[in-house]
């Protein structure tokens, strides 16, 4: 292991970085869960507005998901595009 080249070190660190980038998935998970929980409570209070509540919930969840996807895109770039050569 004493003669690992700089290139190999970069590949290994890229994989570690990709794993770290996916920590970004924690926040959207919590946020989407909160949104879904409140939507369920809202449907329980007012079942007549179910379709409106569902579409609003999906829109909010999709917006909340974006930050997690930034992390995912960074991970994909690190793993497969290999920007650091």
């Amino acid at each position, binding site marked *: 292991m004493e003669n690992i080249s700089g*290139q190999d070190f970069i590949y290994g660190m890229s994989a570690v970085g990709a794993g770290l980038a996916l920590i970004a998935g924690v926040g959207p998970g919590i946020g989407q869960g909160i949104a879904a929980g409140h939507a369920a409570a809202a449907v329980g209070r007012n079942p007549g507005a179910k379709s409106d509540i569902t579409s609003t919930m999906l829109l909010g969840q999709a*917006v909340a998901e974006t930050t997690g996807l930034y992390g995912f895109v960074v991970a994909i770039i690190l793993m497969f595009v290999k920007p650091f050569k």
Partner: protein
Amino acid sequence: MGSGIISSFQNLPVAMEADFMIQYLQEIKINGVSVYITTTHVALLIVSLFIIILAVIANRVIAKADPDATPGTFQNIVDLVVEMLGNMVDGLMGTNAKRFVNYISSIFIFILISNISGLFGLRPPTADYGVTLPLALFTFCIIHYCGIKKNKTKHFTNLFQPVALLFPINVISEVATPLSLSVRLFGNIMSGTVLMGLVYGMFPIFAKLGIPAVMHIYFDIFSGCIQAYVFCMLTMVYVNDKIAD
């Protein structure tokens, strides 16, 4: 030794068989610059042809429809889809719905069929950033065209509201709109494609019997429909934001 580890690492069956990246089928040299015909082009062509054929058939069926007769299955489906899309646009844009229903409907159907095409063995075209960025740039152009048409110069002076100090942040938020729209669609479909590719590439043969079917339902059908809906809804929200009275 180090490079040996890496190269053997890259030759693992996992890395070899997991097939989810864009691949080129044909290389064309134009003035010495390589242009590649990729799987995205082929999938886009198939999806576009499918939509065009569907649209032509639907047009014929609706044009020939007898108002007194019972509508057939296909005519019913076309009615349902058109009505659903009309309601979707109408519910959000209200009086402006007529101007945008055609664009939103076409973009919805295009994204939906693109996302679902993963189910039919194509690599979904929307899992290529080169497809989702133009879609988001169309939205960007429409937003600012409508904004300038409606508010004239106020569209630009609004960037200095509420204080002139916030100008850079307002500009960044305007630029971030197409970026977040395109990355959202790309990331969702790409994550599905990557996971499906890993499942097909990694799992032993007996595990490929039932599990991919469930994952296809979630990643291709459920996620695909949601993302097509979300893209159109956000486009409408952004545009409506600019043209609302």
